[in-house]
């Protein structure tokens, strides 16, 4: 788990910060982006991140669209993603059901939960 790279994409700077603090303390390398556009660009840089943490509601490009584009590109399609959202059930369901992404976490959450979720996501990805 040491040295794995996580890209955190969220327009809330405090939340990005808090997540990054947590993840770094747990030994991950973190990069951040504040909207979908920036996130997309950073995710496409080689080498690609090992995991994405993406907020759904963001300006310029929302999380859903960003993930869609990454999934459509074979180079980035396999990166596991964790989606963060505060939207009610219904909105989440319709959009995310069409994506291959993995965990959905509802805000507010404990960032500890995020750390352990990240670890299990990465384990699963390695296991194939």
């Amino acid at each position, binding site marked *: 788990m040491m040295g794995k790279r996580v890209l955190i994409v969220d327009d809330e700077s405090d*939340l990005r910060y808090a997540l990054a603090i*947590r993840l770094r303390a747990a030994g991950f390398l973190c990069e951040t982006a504040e909207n979908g556009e920036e996130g997309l660009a950073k995710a496409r840089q080689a080498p690609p991140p090992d995991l994405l943490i993406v907020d759904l509601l963001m300006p310029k490009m929302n999380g859903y669209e960003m993930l869609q584009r990454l999934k459509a590109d074979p180079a980035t399609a396999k990166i596991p993603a964790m989606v963060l959202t*505060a939207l009610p059930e219904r909105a989440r369901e*319709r959009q995310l059901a069409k994506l291959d992404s993995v965990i959905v976490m509802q*805000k*507010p959450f404990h960032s500890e939960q995020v750390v352990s979720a990240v670890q299990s996501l990465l384990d699963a990805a390695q296991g194939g």
Partner: protein
Amino acid sequence: MDQTPRSILLIEDDEGQALLTKEALEHEGFVVDVCRTGRQGLERIVAASFDVYLLDMKLPDLHGTEILRRITTMKPGAVCIILSGHGDEVLAVEAMKLGAYDYIIKSPHMGHLTALPVVIREVLERKHLKDEREQLQNELWEHARLLEERNVELRRANDELKRLDELKTDFVSMVSHELRTPMSTIKEFTAIIADGIAGDVTPDQTEYLSIITANVDRLSRIIDDLLDMAKIEAGRVLLNKRLVEPQALVDAVIQSMRPLAESKRVSLETDLPPGLPSLFVDADKMTQVLVNLVSNAIKFTDPGGKVRLAVFEQSTELEFSVSDTGVGIAPDDLPKLFEKFQQFRRSIGGSGSKGTGLGLAISRRLVELHGGSIRASSEPGKGSVFSFTLPKQHLDDVFREYLRAGVESAKRRQAPFSIAVVAVVKFQELMALYGLEEMSRMLKEMELLIRDTIRRRAGDVVIRWHRGEMVVMLSEVDKATAQTIMARLLRTINAWRLTVDGRAIKVSVTVATATYPDDALNDEELLRAADRQVQHAQEVKPCVLVVDDEPKVRQFIAEALEHRGYDVLAAEGGLQALELLKLHHADVILLDLMMPVMEGYEVYHLLKENPNTRDIPVIIVTGKGERTDERLGLDHPTYNHIAKPFQLEDLLAKVRDVLQQDPKGAG
């Protein structure tokens, strides 16, 4: 008609006739003007209007039809009556085509003058009615136009409402988001500090930080409840109903409440009799209600006390009750219990987290939304009982509700929704043959087979068995996918055999699908569309019995026939064929002559001897160069044959022909 005398303009060149006609008409109360030439007549008409124009066809200057044309141009709607001479009928008819209302043939001794006034009056009446009708038609058009305008308005208003509605949902979502985000941040950083990531923490600091966190959690709960309440009050709660087992519901609640109960050393019991009927409810909401009641009960019960969750079946409803041995509620507080923001003064009790004051009010609304009611009773110092009822529902109602909810949900999500109907062919006959028990077993087995093939979790497939028909709901499945799934299912069922009394019976089904929005726009139409297809399919599916000892040949022919929409039975020999015919009906039999054990000839004769099978047309399949007629009798009306090797197309054509020849008609 009003009383003013009708005015007539008579254009007639013959002086004598003109005079006589004028007199006759004036005698009848008409006012008559006379013009002796076409031109004069036209000049007159320019100056004045008349009720009736009487035109002689043979005028010196202009032809009658020309005058007619000009009059109808000048005065559209003018009533013109032609006076034509004997032998001029053709002309008269032509005049009618040009717009004359009627014509009258002048008789040589002016005998027509008796009839003339009658004709004129009749024509005037006709015109009056025509005018009235036109008027009404115009009014109708006007109404229709207004209606259309109103419709457009309504549609616009509707769209506006929808937009506002969506805005409201977004409002709730946005508020939700805006409130939750800062709370998230507070919790995050509190936790980061408390976990020592930002440096060492003293015990006091740890404690204070946990108080901060607890209060953020409380804020979170209040917001959830407020939003819940807001949605309920605005009538915007969408119930996601499905069939739920009471036991499952209770188990889930108990499991989530156990930690709380254990931390307070309160024992948690359940009391459910076996065999409780399923409920058709929104499981999440019901869980919410039960959790509310049970957590309250635990909170207000001292350590060592007991909380019991029981379910009773009444005649038309199920009753859930949560009882505790806690401090009880004062009689004064009881009536207001389920109202908003009541923090009732239960004495001391647990210190536990304070409620939001909305829990019971929300629970009541949720129960009421399901058609139930909630109440509480209590003895201060002894304990309290909170109970609510939920109505039991008929399976048919459940099914309709499911269907309706499914279509609504699809509309909201703008996703397709399909249903498939699987109907057992000749269900009644099978029922008569095998009895209710065997049929029930068959339906159960088929149901499992179907679920397996469609591969969805049991909770998603609603089955309504009704007179041999099963309806399967496939949500978010479009028309093409539904048809593919059903084709697969059809193949699977055709290959399946039901075992009855040690015999393998083939059960035939027809399948039909209907999809929203392609085939129908609401649940009722959807059902009807699917049913119609099934009826149609059942009506036109003739059954062919293939008798051949070669398994490969049998299979090949069977598949080809099934592919063409026939129902197929297959037998490997005469004995089996006869057995099958005892159990099934066939419309035509394909019989191979060269078979061991019981030769085709024997089978043929047996078939013809048996009154039940005598009339089924048989197509004999002969080997190359065989002479069969003598042994079979050329004169039998149902003798047909085809020789091996044959082309598939020829066989299919033969089957078709034979079925069409059948005096009873195909199928």
